[in-house]
């Protein structure tokens, strides 16, 4: 089938503002949007810039705004979109070139919640054991691939970038609810501040955007509750 691909492009060396560019691409209904972008880049216009690596939904590098929704280009099929497809960079982060955005603010928020195991107690003789139930408690957060689909679909994040964002909270959740971790107080400092979880207005955009089907809003609410019960 013939697909009309509209891409919002921006070249920092030439453009003052992003501009729409339209391409006609021959595609199979089972092609992914990533395949279409490759067809353009490899055979029509080599200057098109976008990130991708694994090609099968595990590295999280190709989140884009496709037909108005944040999705991974490598997991979105043409037949689910129709013959006119628009692709824009994810919102709320500075655009570097075409579909590539500066992820640094996103990763700064990620680092701020200390996304690693904190436990200063002397290590036991062998592993720190955990029951299957304790492991299941934080399972959902472990599926996150840091694609930023959630954070960049959040209206609160768009406005002035002062919100730590759903992805960082999901990552914090993964450790706060880990029975081996002792660092929740340190994380609560970043999460409880004016830029933390209390900015969440439960718009549910994040949950809809997550390609890993993580119930993001629910995890955010669980973190809110954890801070609440820790403070009173």
């Amino acid at each position, binding site marked *: 089938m013939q697909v009309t691909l509209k891409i919002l492009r921006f070249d920092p060396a030439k453009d003052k503002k992003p501009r729409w560019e339209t391409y006609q691409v021959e595609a199979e209904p089972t092609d992914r949007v990533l395949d279409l972008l490759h067809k353009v880049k490899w*055979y029509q216009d*080599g*200057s098109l*810039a976008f990130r991708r690596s694994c090609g099968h939904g595990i590295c999280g590098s190709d989140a884009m705004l496709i037909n108005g929704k944040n999705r991974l280009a490598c997991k979105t099929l043409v037949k689910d979109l129709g013959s006119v497809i628009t692709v824009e960079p994810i919102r709320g982060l500075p655009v570097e070139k075409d579909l590539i955005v500066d992820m640094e603010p996103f990763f700064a928020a990620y680092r701020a919640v200390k996304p690693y195991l904190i436990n200063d107690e002397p290590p036991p003789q062998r592993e720190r054991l955990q029951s299957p139930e304790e492991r299941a408690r934080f399972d959902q957060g472990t599926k996150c691939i840091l694609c930023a689909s959630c954070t960049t679909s959040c209206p609160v994040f768009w406005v002035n970038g002062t919100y730590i964002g759903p992805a960082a909270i999901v990552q914090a959740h993964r450790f706060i609810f880990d029975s081996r971790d002792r660092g929740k107080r340190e994380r609560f400092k970043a999460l409880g501040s004016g830029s933390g979880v209390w900015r969440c207005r439960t718009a549910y955009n994040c949950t809809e955007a997550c390609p890993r089907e993580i119930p993001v809003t629910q995890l955010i609410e669980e973190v809110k509750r954890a801070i609440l019960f820790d403070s009173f």
Partner: protein
Amino acid sequence: MDPLKEPVPVMPTAHYAMGGIPTTLWGQVIKDEKNTVVPGLYAAGEAACVSLHGANRLGTNSLGDLVVFGRRAGIHAARFARDADYHELTEEHLGESRERIERIKNSTGKEKVAALRAELQQSMMDNASVFRTGELLQKQVEILKELMDRYKRISIDDKGDAYNTELVEALELGYLLEVSEALVHSALNRTESRGAHAREDYPERDDENWLKHTLAYKVEDGKVAFRYKPVVLGRFEPKARTY
């Protein structure tokens, strides 16, 4: 798609590359069979070859390798950096890299990176993948020569400096060609089957002649020289994998 009506498209992909940049147990790159270290150059991970995996890496062992030898390489590199003097970075050092980039940016040739890469991938899959024969490998040697020649005539649309992913792909194609060349020539040279290297014309393992590491050196396009390093056998004898 509906698997009841249409066949499911299935294709093998590369899972791991055995071999790589030879290193010591501390991640220092070595350049010959006498284990001569290249000072200040380190390699770790899949790109490196500490000679942990033999001719066929077993499942899960890559990440073990990464964690253990990545740490060791890091520790050693930090120690090295503390004592080493900085060298002046002159035009002489930068020249070659700069020239590589400028050559690609300014070229007006007709060859397309994506088309060449697709040909490289397809021919490597056909002639140098799981089951190999001398005939097919020899054919691939010739194909690589031709591809390397055409690679000199590639050109790109994007002449910019910001996020020039087209330039990166073009540079990477050059490296892919070089790695393919090392692989194909070594595979043709090794007249036995061992681990993941399966020659249909030499189906047996030949410890008498081939219980040794191959070091491949590029002489010029299409010409690869070999040196050999003995295998350090520890507790385990090489054995056929019978399961």
